[in-house]
């Protein structure tokens, strides 16, 4: 399989594997995949497991996906694994492939040219004999992609699956999808956020790691009209890095916005620096959401 792609590059005919360790990064990529499908007039089907089916629409809304409207008009459907894989108590690859084939036909009859499917595969690590059915599904489902009407992301939590199953999953998919990571060490992680688009940083950020922040902000400046800088999981930021973000916001034309989302000490740092004079900068506080 080729090098991981960005989620924006995925399209009809792609059967992609997303392996992740950060749940927020997983939801970000899923949100971008769903939003892109809704924007392009695709039907979108989400199978969810670690996030309950009744909560996933809210998680998507938090990430700038108009999920509730899409569900109301029938363009988006969210289902728990229990209703799909465990419909009669035992997982069956054949039944799941048939279910997907049926959904593909239904989407076509409803007038959607493409069905996008995303599935959290962690149901397979429940204490039931499921891994063999997972492997069978990933092998058999490939045929459904042949005519370019199906696009899928299968999500694998690296902390839940063993290395052998992860290696099999990587080989069974035609694509890998991953977030662009600008910097990663035990203290700080800076990666691209897809939905809403921008930058996400977690850990502690000071001037010694300003370079990857500059790189991430510069890329977002090029790619995105409005920029979201998600610092919810950042525990510390110094004045030098606050200044870099302010400087980026100031460089925007009046019709663009840079929105910082933060909490705790990071929120306090932005409050201590007078940002009211910068009309292109918004600072939003969240409480306890990662």
């Amino acid at each position, binding site marked *: 399989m080729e090098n991981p792609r960005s989620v924006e590059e995925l399209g009809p005919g792609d059967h992609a594997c997303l392996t992740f360790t950060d749940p927020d990064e997983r939801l970000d990529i899923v949100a971008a995949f769903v939003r892109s499908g809704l924007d392009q007039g695709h039907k979108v089907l989400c199978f969810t497991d670690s996030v309950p089916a009744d909560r996933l629409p809210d998680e998507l809304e938090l990430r700038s996906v108009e999920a509730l409207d899409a569900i109301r008009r029938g363009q988006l459907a969210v289902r728990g694994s229990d209703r799909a894989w465990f419909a009669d108590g035992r997982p069956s690859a054949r039944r799941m492939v048939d279910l997907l084939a049926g959904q593909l036909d239904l989407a076509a009859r409803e007038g959607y040219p493409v069905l996008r499917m995303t599935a959290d595969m962690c149901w397979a690590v429940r204490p039931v004999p499921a891994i063999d059915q997972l492997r069978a599904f990933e092998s058999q489902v490939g045929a459904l992609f042949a005519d370019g009407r199906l696009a899928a992301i299968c999500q694998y939590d690296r902390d839940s699956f063993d290395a052998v199953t992860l290696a099999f999953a990587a080989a069974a998919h035609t694509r890998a999808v991953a977030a662009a990571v600008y910097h990663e060490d035990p*203290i700080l992680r800076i990666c691209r956020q897809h939905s809403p688009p921008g930058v996400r940083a977690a850990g502690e950020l*000071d*001037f*010694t790691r300003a370079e990857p922040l500059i790189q991430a902000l510069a890329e977002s400046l090029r790619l995105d009209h409005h920029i979201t800088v998600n610092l919810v999981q950042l525990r510390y930021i*110094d*004045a030098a890095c606050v*200044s870099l973000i302010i400087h980026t916001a100031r460089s925007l034309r009046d019709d663009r916005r840079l929105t910082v989302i933060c909490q705790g000490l990071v929120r306090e740092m932005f409050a*201590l*620096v*007078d940002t009211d004079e910068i009309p292109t900068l918004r600072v939003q506080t969240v409480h306890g959401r990662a």
Partner: protein
Amino acid sequence: MVGPEMHARRVGPAAGRGGASLDQPFGPDDLYALRAAVAAHAAHLGAPPDRVAHVVIVAGELASNVVRHGGGRGRLRLSWVDGAVRCEVSDEGPGIPDPDGAGKRPPSVLALGGRGLFIVRRLAASLTIRNTGRGTTVTALVTVPDPRS
């Protein structure tokens, strides 16, 4: 990275109040460990979480200044003084120009630098900058509310 326990030297009573709680040299690679040590010791001195954050911000900015402009290496002492956490950072660098005025005015929104001392002055009840000829010592007091009041 060097953990705080490798450099930190306790010189006061275990509870902290009444003596220096933390006396720690630092360099460019030690800022993360230094902040972790400051947070732990400020909490140990009795600062509530919001004031621990203030002490960490103050210590972090003063230490960053030393690494960037003050010769690269310095020493941080944290202690309890009359209802406040006292944070003293010293270096052997070239000194801070206009020690009485530094950080008193809000930096221009156009400025990329200069916000560190401004933020420290906003959080600290008092800030003293002393150029000694052999370097600079900056002392900030962050008041801590008395839990009994």
